[in-house]
């Protein structure tokens, strides 16, 4: 059993006078995929943002490799990749420029590798087109191209399958499976039906009705 990368201990989060979750403890181990489930408004995105360190209005402890995360913030951020609802793509820049600036803050990657990553997400030929001329799905693919060059052992991916077509979804599923097999830790939320045999589940919003 390897040590967990990220641990949340007794998390409690309330938002606008409503308790989203309490006494929630999650351990993210290398080589596992954790799926956060729950109905709309149950706090899936909030939990992911807390795990990623974007939201700090919670009580409880966050541990990075067994130590308080806030004291190892730089190391945590260096080893964590977060993709949210908003793709993080500047409409005025081309996919290449976008990817280059996104990577510029994290590690040195040659243009050739980035070019290939964009080709790998099906954006071959669009590398130098302004991103605003791309469709929503293509813009998300630009963000997903980061996954192909990422060396971060921890991925936190919010609604990753949104606006991606069937082929893209299949390729993405394969990527996630391979990543887990090679020791990566992944946390996802998705409405898309996605199953792995060894998947961990975190279910939120137990008190809510699931029907309409």
């Amino acid at each position, binding site marked *: 059993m*390897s040590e967990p*990368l990220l641990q949340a201990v007794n998390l409690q989060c309330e938002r606008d006078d409503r308790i989203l979750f309490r006494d929630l403890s999650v351990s993210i181990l*290398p*080589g596992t995929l954790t799926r956060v489930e729950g109905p709309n408004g149950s706090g899936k995105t909030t939990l992911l*943002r807390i795990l*990623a*360190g*974007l*939201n*700090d*209005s919670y009580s409880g402890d966050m541990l990075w*490799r067994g130590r308080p995360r806030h004291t190892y913030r*730089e*190391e945590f*951020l*260096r*080893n*964590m990749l*977060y993709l*949210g*609802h*908003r*793709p*993080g*793509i*500047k*409409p*005025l*820049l081309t996919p290449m*420029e976008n990817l280059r*600036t*996104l990577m*510029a*803050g*994290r*590690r*040195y990657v040659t243009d050739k590798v980035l070019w290939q990553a964009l080709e790998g997400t099906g954006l071959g030929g669009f590398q130098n087109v*302004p991103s605003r001329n791309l469709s929503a799905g293509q813009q998300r693919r630009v963000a997903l191209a980061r996954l192909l060059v990422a*060396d*971060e*052992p921890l991925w936190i991916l919010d609604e990753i399958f949104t606006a991606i077509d069937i082929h893209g979804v299949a390729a993405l599923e394969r990527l996630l499976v391979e990543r887990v*097999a*090679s*020791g*990566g830790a992944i946390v996802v939320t998705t409405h898309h039906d996605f199953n792995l045999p060894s998947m961990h589940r975190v279910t939120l919003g137990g008190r809510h009705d699931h029907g309409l």
Partner: protein
Amino acid sequence: MTMASETKLPVRTSEESVSALSAMKAVFSRDLKTAFRQPQDLLNPLLFFVMVVTLFPLGVSPEVSFLREAGSGILWVAALLSVLLSLDHLYRHDFDDGTLEQLVLQPQPLFLLVLAKSLAHWVLTGLPLVMLAPVLGVMVHLEGNSVAILCLTLLIGTPVLSLIGSIGAALTLGLRSAGVLLSLLIIPLYIPVLIFGTGTVMAASESAPVGGQLALMGAFLVLALTLAPFASAAALRISLSNS
């Protein structure tokens, strides 16, 4: 199995990340690049600056004596307002398209990245205002020496406006009617810069020594450079926490 796989994806130490300086450069050049792709947005604050200055001769008096006395104040107020107007964009687009989240999640200290963004904002708004000021200074009949001093005060003062304004922009991020609120928060904080900016020019026009005032404005700049990025970074974290 896990042992073998862990060697494939080792945890990196923070020393293995990109240096803060090159990350700052990347942020700075991205902001310039996006701005130049939409040149109209760059032009608008400048046009606003010119138009506000035009209002004073029309609305108060075109007399040379009035304009010469009030000119530095008019230019400073107009510059202040147009910086204020442009602040709303500082983080708004980044917030909407998600690049701000990615910025906050970069391993480098956030205050340095914020500093890079504030500097880019100054290069894109403050600096053009400084370059336009001599023309307008002549139009409000300021004398040669006063024009030079005015430009100097703007050159020292407008970065302070960008730096302090960045705090307000970060605090009001994602709020309804953020623009007006931003002005309410920031205008009181701009008052010292305005006072010294215009006061220095007035002193110069009376041939009084201005070295002391300029040094003080320099001190404001140093203070803003060292403190404002921390406040902006804290404010950004809070605003993103809330979104």
